[in-house]
């Protein structure tokens, strides 16, 4: 799966600095994968990733491909233009990934009018590449009636 999107007219985003712990999340999209840190001992996912599992203390935390599907737990339509040329309005959402209750990823929801976004809406991951970063973003699940 190579679910990449494009923002041809938008200015460059302020990108995350990469390190060994966050690099899988920010670059997994190069292979079309959403990689979430998962404890090899107890199986708990955690995001953002840390060097140890916050649930059991396990030191073996492995970037693990997930389905990339989830539901919108909450969201906001941002209308204020914080920087010149920032495209508004846009949606900033907390997506609860299907793999685990309370496993939240905060990201933009794109690919539909901002008015179409709603609570509990099923979404799936897509990726926006800028430089060496593939930002995980979300779009409504194809064929959903949202």
């Amino acid at each position, binding site marked *: 799966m190579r679910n990449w999107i494009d923002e041809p007219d938008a200015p460059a985003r302020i990108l995350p600095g990469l390190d060994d712990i966050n690099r899988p999340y920010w670059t997994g999209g190069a292979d079309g994968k959403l990689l979430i840190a998962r404890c090899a001992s107890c199986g708990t996912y955690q995001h953002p990733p840390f060097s140890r599992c916050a649930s059991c203390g396990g030191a073996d935390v492995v970037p693990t491909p997930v389905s990339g599907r989830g539901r919108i737990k909450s969201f906001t339509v941002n209308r*204020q233009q914080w920087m010149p040329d920032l495209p508004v309005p*846009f949606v900033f959402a907390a997506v609860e990934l299907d793999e685990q209750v309370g496993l939240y990823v*905060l990201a933009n929801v794109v690919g539909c009018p901002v008015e179409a976004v709603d609570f509990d809406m099923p979404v799936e991951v897509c990726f926006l590449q800028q430089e060496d970063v593939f930002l995980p973003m979300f779009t409504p699940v194809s064929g959903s009636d949202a």
Partner: protein
Amino acid sequence: MTTHPEKLVRITGAGQSEVGRPSKRSALALTTDACAAAIASAGLTPADIDGLVTYPGLIANGDGMSPVGSTEAMLALGLQPTWVASSTEGHAHMGAIIQAISAIASGLCRHVLVFRTVAQASARAEVSHAGIIGGGRTVAPRTWGGMSWLVPYNALSAATLYGLYGNAYFRKYGARSEQLGAIAVNSRAMAALNPNAIYRKPITIDDYLASRLISDPLRLYDCDTHIDGSTALVLSHRDAVREGPNVPIRIEAMGMGISGFGVGLHTGDFTEMPARRAGDMLWSRTDLTPKDLDFAQIYDGFSILTLMWLEALSICGPGEAAAFVEGGSRIGLTGELPLNTSGGQLSAGRFHGYGHTYEACLQLWNKGGARQVQGARTGVVSNGGFGYGCLLLTTD
């Protein structure tokens, strides 16, 4: 019996600079104005100050968030403190006060000067985007740490994040904009009575509802306003209190809470903050209850935080704060719980937590002028939107 450290400490002095948007005075001059006033109001001289702390400490990137640190203030005021500290980590705005309490109770020092200076209005007058997260005079090409989970998604202001919380709160509890707006309307009404507030023209709920959306459901009037200004407090060991112009204020209880918010980790359903832990801790350390409060100075960087804090402090039950503030009568000057009597950060200006504690002191010293809560003897102050702290203050 355990003696809680805060019970050994008194607030003996408080001072505040002029507020400006921007101010003609430098950030350092605003700082020394506030500090000198606080020291004098404690009946002390600079030579008496043996502890010094600020929040969050010097941030030397030109964005005005914290342009004066402990060291510069120490030199400018001619202080020779034994104990000096600052921290961006921990319990946010209230963290420096909690550190001061700890230092005094442990015997490291007896009179601690606590200050907080902001010059965000000056910075934004020069560079309009100096207010964004990770701003500064130039925008760094990459973002690191907790903010790196937000900034790439153009969540360049905390308004965007708290909008997400606001929507969740509205959705779960059926809260309405007319209810949330009561906080902004109340703040303006209070600010109209405060000569050192930045926005003093009253607004109506209709003005609020007509104001533009910033990040749903937050409107312009739900967001606090950047200013230049400084606030200072003096905390003293109870055995070291000097005869001064003001009655020493007892710190009856304090509360602290923190979670993963600041590193991008979110838990729960986005309708409450880890402030709950701070509120529960506060009430566990006193025989007083929310019914004993004469006023509340509650953090209002965004109005939705005030709603969530009202619940975290058990002043309202979960989901009940919106109805509590609706219409404004309960939170007005003659209501059952006067709220943010200075105008708060929404209307008096973003003194960044310290305005709330300063205002609590004025009220307890009966120096509230036209906005004085009659007979005010006990009040609560709470600060924070990602690290949380609260104080129960009394002159009884």
